């Protein structure tokens, strides 16, 4: 059993970690753009992002399933039921969360730090870099919360990954399966590990949040 547990845990961390890195790579630049200045377009985009933060994971799963399935518009990539499709789905799932949290951090810092930086002689690029550096602890917090949502979600992993043993089975899909089979020991073990991971991340978030 322990071999299976450790394999599933490792895959979960890898898949959700990759999804988080991917999501952060486009979410933080987007948040920087949204926080840069006030405009109707940016406000609408931010409202949309805020609305999508709580979007049900099964909905993302369904939409991506339709896109990626053999007959769907992106079917020719053959991504459905691969770890890559879970990565893509989770990255999309947590994008609004990271964008919204980061944008609010950056907007808060913007007014004052930006002015100070420019007045001290920074170029706009230097001022942006300073703003991001000043927001870093709380940006990291936003990214870690995204990771927590990714590793704990079931809808995307199940619908896009298909819970294939040794290939796309992750902690949440494994737990769901084991419970449905009445195998509570494995389910509880995995549940415990998931809890430790999520609590661990939350503890880091708290600590980092205080520093920023």
């Amino acid at each position, binding site marked *: 059993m322990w071999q299976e547990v450790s394999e599933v845990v490792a895959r979960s961390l890898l898949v959700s970690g990759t999804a988080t890195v991917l999501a952060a790579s486009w979410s933080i630049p987007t948040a920087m753009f949204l926080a840069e200045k006030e405009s109707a377009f940016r406000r609408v985009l931010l409202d949309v992002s805020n609305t999508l933060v709580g979007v049900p994971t099964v909905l993302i799963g369904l939409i991506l399933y339709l896109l990626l399935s053999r007959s769907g518009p992106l079917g020719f990539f053959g991504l459905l039921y691969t770890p890559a499709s879970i990565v893509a789905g989770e990255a999309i799932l947590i994008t609004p969360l990271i964008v919204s949290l980061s944008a609010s951090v950056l907007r808060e810092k913007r007014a*004052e730090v930006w002015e100070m930086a420019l007045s001290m002689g920074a*170029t706009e690029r*230097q001022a942006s870099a*300073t703003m991001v*550096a000043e927001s870093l602890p709380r940006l990291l917090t936003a990214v870690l919360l995204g990771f927590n949502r990714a590793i704990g979600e079931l809808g995307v992993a199940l619908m896009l990954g298909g819970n294939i043993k040794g290939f796309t089975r992750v902690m949440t899909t494994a737990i769901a399966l084991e419970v449905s089979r009445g195998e509570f020991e494995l389910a509880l073990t995995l549940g415990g590990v998931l809890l430790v991971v999520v609590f661990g991340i939350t503890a880091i978030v708290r600590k980092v949040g205080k520093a920023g």
Partner: protein
Amino acid sequence: MIELKRVSFAYPRSCEDAIKNASLVFGPGVTAVIGPNGSGKTTLLKLAALLYRPRAGEVLIDGVSFWSMPDAAKVAFRRKVVYVHEKPIMLRGSVADNVAYGLRVRNLSSEDVAARVDEALEALGIKSLAREKAQALSIGQQQRVALARALAVRPKSLLLDEPTANLDKSGREEFMELIVGLAERGTCIAVATHDRLLALKLMDRAVIVENGTATLIENPEEASLV
């Protein structure tokens, strides 16, 4: 030297101008910007600091209209002016890091940075705080750090927003000495303040701000305004 020519400014989504048709020069020596809360002192200083773009009118720096310059030319002119916020804005990191900020963005060599940071800390009497975390200091100490950071870049114009609000009596006196010294060496200084005594002691001229209207008074004693 900074000059405002018929400058008007409104905050976004506000229908009334916060500054109305202001024409003034912030020349050498000390200009005290006096007025009640909410009259527009901060707004006026930020316009002079080239941070706010006027809705109408021009801001001239050394005779050149700042907001009609190409973007690439702006930095060099902005570097002649420093504005210090009323509420000090400290970056993460040490006091020395904060004071070094303006020097680092100017790409000075690390020896020059170290020497100038030292000099500025000395001038403000906060050398002993150099390694402290800036954000953990008291507001009064942070205000000194902000001032040291401003002095380190040796600006031609220095715009200070309520600089003594969080200083005690001896801090105020030291501050006044510092300002007088800078003014004697040719820095153009503007100080927004409630502190009448401070204004009286320091100023060569006054700008009275009332409800967004700014009036320059060249001989405040004769006009018996304070």
